[in-house]
């Protein structure tokens, strides 16, 4: 399984791998917000948590169709499916590699970008924590969507339609945990962690069923 994670990280870092693309997209989405809403620092500060989470979510979405599609197209997925690693293990490795090349860099990049949006000083720790524990859910849910649409040609739009509604709970809790006026953000962070753990525990098995059906 480590071989698969390391290979996916290596592929993401190579030309056309999507790592730089995802990070650049996140950067641009956050940077254009002040141009759109104006230089009202109070307003930017209020909307910063939501914008940062929406940016993270959209950047994550951008790289989802690569998770299985490229392996499907070049025959690697078939070969992996007949390997000693179970399909649920393959899905776990793929989602982990996706988080390491998407969720983790986005989490780290969100700190300087929070400054651009005049994020409240007290919210930086919450921003880092909520993204660090929430983005694994985005990767695992996304991997499930990618497994469902793996055989569909140009299935990117279908994937977005399937996945975006499933992202809503994580998005709401993540953005709300940083909002001014939230009395007990720890409870919200605990709920985000619960969603992530649930996704990590259950979705690889759902991915395996979806992949098995698509490989037929």
């Amino acid at each position, binding site marked *: 399984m480590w*071989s698969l994670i*390391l*290979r996916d990280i290596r592929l993401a870092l190579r030309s056309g791998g999507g790592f730089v693309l995802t990070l650049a997209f996140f950067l641009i989405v956050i940077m254009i917000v002040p141009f759109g809403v104006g230089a009202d620092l109070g307003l930017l500060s209020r909307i910063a948590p939501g914008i940062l989470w929406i940016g993270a979510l959209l950047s994550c979405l951008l790289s989802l169709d690569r998770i299985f599609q490229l392996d499907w197209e070049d025959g690697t997925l078939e*070969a992996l499916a007949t390997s000693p690693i179970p399909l649920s293990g393959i899905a776990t490795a793929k989602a982990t590699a996706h988080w390491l090349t998407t969720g983790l860099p986005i989490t780290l990049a969100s700190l300087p970008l929070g400054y651009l949006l005049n994020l409240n000083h007290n919210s930086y720790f919450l921003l880092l924590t909520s993204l660090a524990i929430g983005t694994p859910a985005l990767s695992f849910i996304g991997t499930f969507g990618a497994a469902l649409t793996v055989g569909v040609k140009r299935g990117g739009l279908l994937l977005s339609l399937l996945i975006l509604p499933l992202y809503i709970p994580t998005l709401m809790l993540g953005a709300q945990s940083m909002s001014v006026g939230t009395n007990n953000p720890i409870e919200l962070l605990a709920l985000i962690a619960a969603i992530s753990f649930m996704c990590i525990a259950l979705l690889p098995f759902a991915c395996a069923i979806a992949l098995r059906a698509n490989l037929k």
Partner: protein
Amino acid sequence: MLLKIKNLDCRRGNKLIIANVSFNLKSGECLILKGPNGSGKTTLLRYIAGLSTNNLLNDNIAYSGHLDGVKSTLTVQENLKFWSGIYNTNNMTNVIKTLKLNDFQNRIAGELSAGQKRRLGLARMLITNAKIWLMDEPTVSLDKTTTTLISEIITQHCKEGGAAIISTHVNLNLPSSKVLDISEFKPEIDKEFDPFLEGIF
């Protein structure tokens, strides 16, 4: 006996392609699947590999399909190292030597010719250390010399106690091989089935 297939029905989508396929595969044997295009050779191989069923028929199987399973942005060595890690084997250097990949082992796979890519894809079979090789048209894109090399590798694999099921239109001159004509298993009536009722999901 390495593999025993008895009364196997194979479907593509919801159409029955071949029915009641039965054969035995002993150690050292090579089974050549013959039949016209669309007769079900690939479908049968996918069934045996466990890709079209919910359970693997045998866990000592390596499958090589029409596609090479090669990552074009990785080097030849990186591609093989990845499969070595997946199968937890350490015979990569020997495999490179056997398939004569030495000269381009540090080249990006995307820069290889179709034949060289095919060779790299087939190298995975040796990496797996599996007893049974399932090969679907292994000699596509290969020149005469490389086709002979592949035949020799398969012969050696069978001599060492392995077995192979190969779908091919080319005469590979393999000793101790028997031919299975797939067209003999064509069902008389095309039975339709409901995948939900059959519990396929």
